[in-house]
């Protein structure tokens, strides 16, 4: 079981930018399309290193997505990156028909995901992209947990065949995995063992899940923390095993509760191992401007909500649905 310590703070977008350069060195058919925010999503690293394989498309996400399809149909491995609000929404029809129905080797980097985008506010905070992307047949969706894992995930989706989307953020967030930390596309990693409650998280919420597990341990509760980075295709075995052995599940993500990673886990468990599940995420509302950490607090995306949710899930397991009301959760709306 890997032990984690904080190595520092870095934005996950940096991992994406560095991963693209590694891919560019390994494969001469990797090309990158820019959507005018190349510095911001750090495709500028690739642009500066491989200028002949970088094409600026301008502020035209629909066109960039379908131009990528034309490149893929010509034997290239095109990456198009923008903010998730623009490269999972503005181009949703292009993703559906030309990328996924066509089943071509197009890779999308969805930046500025989650509430931690901060001062740019609600328009730029992608909180529904997981729901859209995971509904598309043939698509692979990865939400890595920190800078290093984003770099690995970016390389990984470049090395598999087919449509894929990697989701990353803007803010400096805890960096805690290393080159040695296990990562394999499609396999959820148990980051901390335990059998009292399972906390299944993705993205920056994995670190918060580890913090919550520390706090739960002080009460003698051993929480299993799972880094569920590949949301599609999901590692059903690891998820179901955790549910069976713990009997209570919490999911945590920087995304709407509706349609997100937690919903995907609930879909899996409803069929395979129905146990009480508590979902931590954004509760059917838009974000707003503020400092990233302040927003994570305001919108209920910290270890505290995971901690509370774990207690609720365990109580529901132990006492049935009658136990639910006994734990107070000010954000509880469902």
């Amino acid at each position, binding site marked *: 079981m890997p032990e984690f310590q904080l190595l520092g703070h870095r934005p996950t977008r940096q991992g994406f930018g560095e991963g693209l350069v590694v891919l560019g060195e390994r494969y001469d058919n990797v*090309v990158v399309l820019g959507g005018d925010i190349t510095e911001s999503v750090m495709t500028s690293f690739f642009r500066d290193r491989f200028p*002949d*394989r970088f*094409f600026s*498309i*301008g502020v*035209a996400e*629909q*066109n960039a*997505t*379908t*131009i*990528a*399809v*034309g*490149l*893929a*149909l*010509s*034997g*290239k491995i*095109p990456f198009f990156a923008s903010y998730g609000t623009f490269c999972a929404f503005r181009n949703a*029809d*292009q993703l*559906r*028909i*030309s990328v996924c*129905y*066509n*089943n071509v080797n197009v890779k999308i980097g969805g930046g500025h995901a989650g509430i931690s985008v901060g001062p740019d506010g609600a328009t730029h905070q992608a909180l529904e992209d997981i729901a859209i992307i995971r509904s598309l047949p043939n698509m692979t969706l990865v939400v890595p947990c920190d800078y290093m894992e984003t770099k690995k995930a970016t390389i990984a989706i470049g090395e598999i065949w087919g449509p894929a989307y990697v989701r990353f953020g803007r803010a400096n967030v805890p960096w805690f995995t290393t080159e040695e930390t296990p990562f394999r596309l499609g396999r959820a990693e148990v980051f901390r063992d335990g059998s009292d409650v399972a906390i299944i998280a993705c993205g920056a919420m994995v670190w918060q899940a580890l913090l919550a597990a520390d706090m739960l341990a002080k009460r003698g509760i051993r929480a299993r923390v799972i880094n569920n980075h590949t949301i599609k295709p999901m590692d059903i075995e690891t998820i179901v095993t955790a549910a069976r052995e713990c009997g209570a599940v919490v999911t945590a993500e920087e995304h709407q509760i509706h349609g997100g990673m937690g919903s995907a886990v609930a879909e899996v468990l409803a069929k395979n191992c129905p146990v009480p599940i508590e979902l931590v995420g954004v509760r059917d509302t838009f974000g707003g401007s503020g400092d990233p950490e302040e927003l994570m607090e305001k919108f209920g995306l910290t270890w505290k909500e995971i901690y509370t949710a774990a207690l609720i899930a365990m109580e529901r397991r132990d006492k049935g649905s009658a136990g639910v009301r006994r734990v107070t959760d000010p954000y509880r709306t469902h």
Partner: protein
Amino acid sequence: MKAENLRIVFSPTVYENRRRHPEEFVEIAREIRRDIIKMLVLAGSGHSGGPLGTADIHAVLFFGGYLRYRPKDPWWSGRDRYVLSAGHLCPVLYSTLARAGFFPIEELRTLRKYGSRLQGHPGRDMGLPGIETSTASLGQGISIAVGMALSDKWLDKNDRRVFALTGDGELQEGSVWEAAMAAAHYRLDNLCWIVDNNDCQIDGRVHDVMSIYPLDKKFEAFGFTVLHCDGHNYAELMACFDQFLENHRRGIGKPTAIIAHTKMGRGVSFMEDDYRWHGKPPTPEQALRALQELEDPYIAVVETTET
């Protein structure tokens, strides 16, 4: 009458792709039009007007030596590529591909049927030889063609060419103009963009539904070389394609747009220039009339035993 009451026979003729005298396209285009009517009456649904209106364009492009392809080696790496951005016109493409020898002509009978490689709109997942990409969400195919041309000109630096056909109603999609911008920005002289300008769309005349005009000035402003032709005049179509090939050979650094002035439903008197034929198939009675007008040698009414 039902479709079963018609004797529907597809001729076995396959055509070569070579330089031809304009008169030679008359029979080829008529054969394609017959196929379209037969496919649609058997399917019982689909689009009639656009496919009939672009039969002449497809005949010249595929059988006049302009598009380079190998029907027995459909994914040959040196081929030129053709993207039917207006995917709903696919009956004309299916017929053309079958007549070029990409797949058995008899397969035309399966249009829109469950499990057929001839999907209601082109789907690459079915693996039909000659279908380069799935299309039909309007506007997307032309951007895909731009991506292909970009790859050929700036990455692989080869002499392949990309032809794409959009409708005119399709030009109301905003992303089409994103594609136009990019094609000119990257100086894609290997891209030939054909506009099927019949001024018809489902709701009516294009100039009534939402005007796209002036079309030539728009393309010129975006940085294209613009050519006009009567989309049913073989000599004019050939002149346009010859000019595009010359533009490409000379490396003029500009994409070419061919505005082909066409009539929806061309070749069938009661369909011609009538937008109501955009999205419906002929009834068996109408198919009979159409095939008689198109001088189909096989068509006849047959008795079927009703149960």
